[in-house]
């Protein structure tokens, strides 16, 4: 095989893409296609709750078009990080849509499902054996932290995907995955250079985001050869430049020259970008070095409680000058009122002031300038929804009527845009596991299950 063509459907399945771009891509006879469906960007809630950021109707639309295209063409279709967080409920939700589409559209195919949830005992053993390490500022992983977790997923590398492809899978639906593994597995299986394959995958896993003009989710074609790869957006209104492709390596990652995969590190210091024609860019020089000890990244969350919020606005100048005092009084009053039933550590109460320091949480470059109107979000978190509702309700009514020196607007401090004013937010989670785990075989924890669909 001298040339491998891969169609990336989009950066996140469910965000939509033009069907015309998909058709353009299919017309170029790709050997396989792929789509990423997940991210930690939207926060810990999705991994904790099992919910998806992209809704069922969005998946129905995007998977409907792309699955039909893959089956019509008879090429493998690889979907990674199913259902936002890539845990079992997320995989099951996308699987459910896939079965529905197969029935609706009459598809028949061999499916490989690769799950990514990690058994607690498996992770605890690694903790005991000193095979885990922290990323960033999180403390070292402990067995207690593992026990506390609601769900832990591991980011699978290329190994499990290769097993699925070698087993004859026509469609692969994987839980939490390295974005690059979705596209690199097929290339690795066919003996292509891993530095180039990983680099190409790192760009196309975001769909055509590297293309100009910058716009919504779209399809891109990658062509991998022996010593370079080429990229071409499948939307004919879009183009690539060496700068737009190089700049994409800045996106959402700490270092534009290096990125780490379970299998090793990809070095882009010698990568060269050249314009092929008005719309295509060629890349060469990207290198791969295998890791001596393969690692996979774990993501885990714990439940912090249940949230209720209210949103209100303020415009009284004396109130805006005294927000810190009012907040302190509200906290004191609430503490006094719930004191009989809740200890201070059993609830959290926070105030975010938009128009003052709501975004940065501290004075900005121009000091603590306050807008002429300020919005406040009051947040209560407690062990259950009923308690959070009650704490928030107390805080809201206290804030509304709270007195302070120089107060003139004595009828009420808050302008509520809505009735009811309070919104239960459900369970609140926190990423407390974001650690590497060393494994002799990075693919070992990920089982590949084959089934027939249709």
């Amino acid at each position: 095989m001298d040339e491998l063509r891969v169609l990336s459907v989009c950066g996140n399945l469910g965000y939509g893409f033009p069907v015309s771009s998909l058709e353009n891509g299919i017309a170029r006879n790709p050997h396989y296609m792929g789509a990423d469906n997940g991210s930690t960007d939207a926060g810990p809630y999705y991994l904790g709750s099992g919910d998806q950021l992209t809704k069922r109707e969005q998946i129905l639309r995007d998977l409907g078009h792309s699955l039909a295209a893959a089956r019509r063409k008879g090429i493998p279709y690889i979907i990674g990080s199913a259902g936002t967080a890539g845990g079992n409920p997320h995989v099951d939700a996308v699987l459910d849509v896939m079965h529905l589409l197969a029935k609706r559209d009459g598809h028949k195919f061999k499916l490989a499902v690769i799950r990514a949830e990690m058994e607690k005992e498996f992770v605890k053993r690694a903790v005991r054996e000193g095979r885990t390490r922290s990323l960033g500022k999180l403390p070292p992983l402990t067995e207690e932290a593992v026990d506390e977790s609601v769900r832990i997923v591991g980011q699978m590398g290329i190994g499990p995907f290769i097993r699925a492809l070698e087993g004859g899978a026509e469609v692969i639906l994987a839980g939490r995955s390295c974005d690059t593994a979705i596209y690199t597995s097929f290339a690795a299986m066919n003996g292509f250079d891993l530095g180039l394959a990983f680099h190409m995958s790192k760009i196309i896993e975001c769909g055509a985001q590297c293309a100009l003009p910058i716009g919504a989710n779209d399809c891109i074609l990658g062509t991998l050869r022996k010593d370079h790869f080429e990229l071409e957006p499948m939307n004919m209104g879009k183009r690539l430049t060496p700068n737009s492709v190089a700049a994409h390596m800045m996106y959402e990652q700490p270092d534009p020259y290096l990125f780490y995969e379970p299998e090793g590190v990809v070095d882009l210091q010698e990568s060269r970008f050249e314009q092929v024609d008005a719309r295509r860019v060629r890349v060469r020089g990207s290198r791969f070095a295998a890791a001596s000890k393969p690692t996979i990244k774990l993501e885990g969350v714990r439940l912090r409680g249940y949230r209720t919020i209210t949103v209100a606005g303020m415009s009284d100048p004396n109130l805006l000058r005294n927000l810190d005092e009012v907040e302190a009084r509200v906290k004191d009053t609430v503490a006094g009122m719930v004191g009989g039933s809740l200890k201070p550590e059993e609830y959290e109460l926070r105030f975010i002031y938009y128009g003052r320091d709501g975004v940065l949480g501290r004075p900005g470059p121009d000091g603590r300038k306050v807008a002429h109107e300020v919005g406040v979000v009051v947040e209560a978190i407690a062990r259950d929804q009923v308690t959070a509702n009650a704490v928030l309700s107390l805080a809201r009514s206290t804030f509304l009527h709270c007195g302070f020196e120089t107060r003139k607007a004595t009828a009420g401090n808050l302008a509520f845009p809505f009735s009811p004013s309070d919104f239960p937010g459900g369970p609140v989670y926190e990423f407390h596991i974001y650690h590497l785990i060393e494994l002799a075989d990075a693919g070992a924890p990920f089982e590949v299950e084959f089934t027939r669909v249709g």
Partner: protein
Amino acid sequence: MERLYDLAEVLRSKNAGPLYITLDLLFADEATYRRVSGSEALSPGAVGELYGVAAEDVKIVHFDAANAIKITIPRTGPTSGAPGDRDVYGAQQHGPLLGLMIP
């Protein structure tokens, strides 16, 4: 002296995973890129001060191929989306850089 906000074509922040914020500064031409890259205004110490993190935790990478500078800092408070976080996607944390004056 000009404001960094006026010199940059793109000035953005975003999560690099739930534990880090990464700030990208892209410039329209090499001359502006060199002007800012060579400036002391953007040292790890200066950036650290703006964000309340130690200079050794500020990673600055100069990326010639894209006329770009990348700054990565750890989230000092809660992890992305945990109680107390203000910016789940980390998309509006470039504010402190806006007013930096570049000779």
